[in-house]
């Protein structure tokens, strides 16, 4: 198990649920799901990158 795999699994599964609950219509759901997935992954990478200089 890698951190990246956990991030991708978490982001994809939660995005599917959010898209189903928040939007109606196939097209809108796919668009919202992809946007949410991208936001999860991008924000995690940015926060991880910002924390890189901190000692563990």
């Amino acid at each position, binding site marked *: 198990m890698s951190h990246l795999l*956990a991030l991708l699994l*978490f982001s994809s*599964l939660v995005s*599917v*649920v959010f898209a*189903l609950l928040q939007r*109606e219509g196939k097209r809108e759901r796919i668009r919202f799901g992809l946007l949410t997935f991208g936001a999860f992954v991008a924000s995690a990478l940015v926060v991880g990158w910002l924390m890189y200089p901190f000692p563990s």
Partner: protein
Amino acid sequence: MADSKIIAEPRRGGAVPAVILAWLLPGAGHLYLRRTTKGLVLLVTILALFSLGVAWDARLSPYLRLDDLLAFLRSIAQMAMGLPYFIARSLGFDAGLVTAPSHEYGNTFTEVSGLLNILVMLDAYDIAVGRKSGS
């Protein structure tokens, strides 16, 4: 004038069983309300999230005292998964493994799956009373 918030025909007497079924098994409330595809996708995704969490050594044992509010809230979140939570505990997965590298991931996955199921329960309620079409 009709209430503009009512956008679908409510299912009479359906709200309480829909919410209870949704708690017992993610997506079951939607299946009861005949939103089959949505119910099945919710079932698979939320169950996958919870199962991954259990496989990654999450701690499932309940903490129901208020002296540690965060531990209390995370237990409530996990219990919102309904039957899968209690089945996993009865199968001996309740202790988790705090030394495992994946332990905190497991905790997060199981807690978030329960929180998502609360949203699913609210969605089932909205569909049952006619606030959403939910198709």
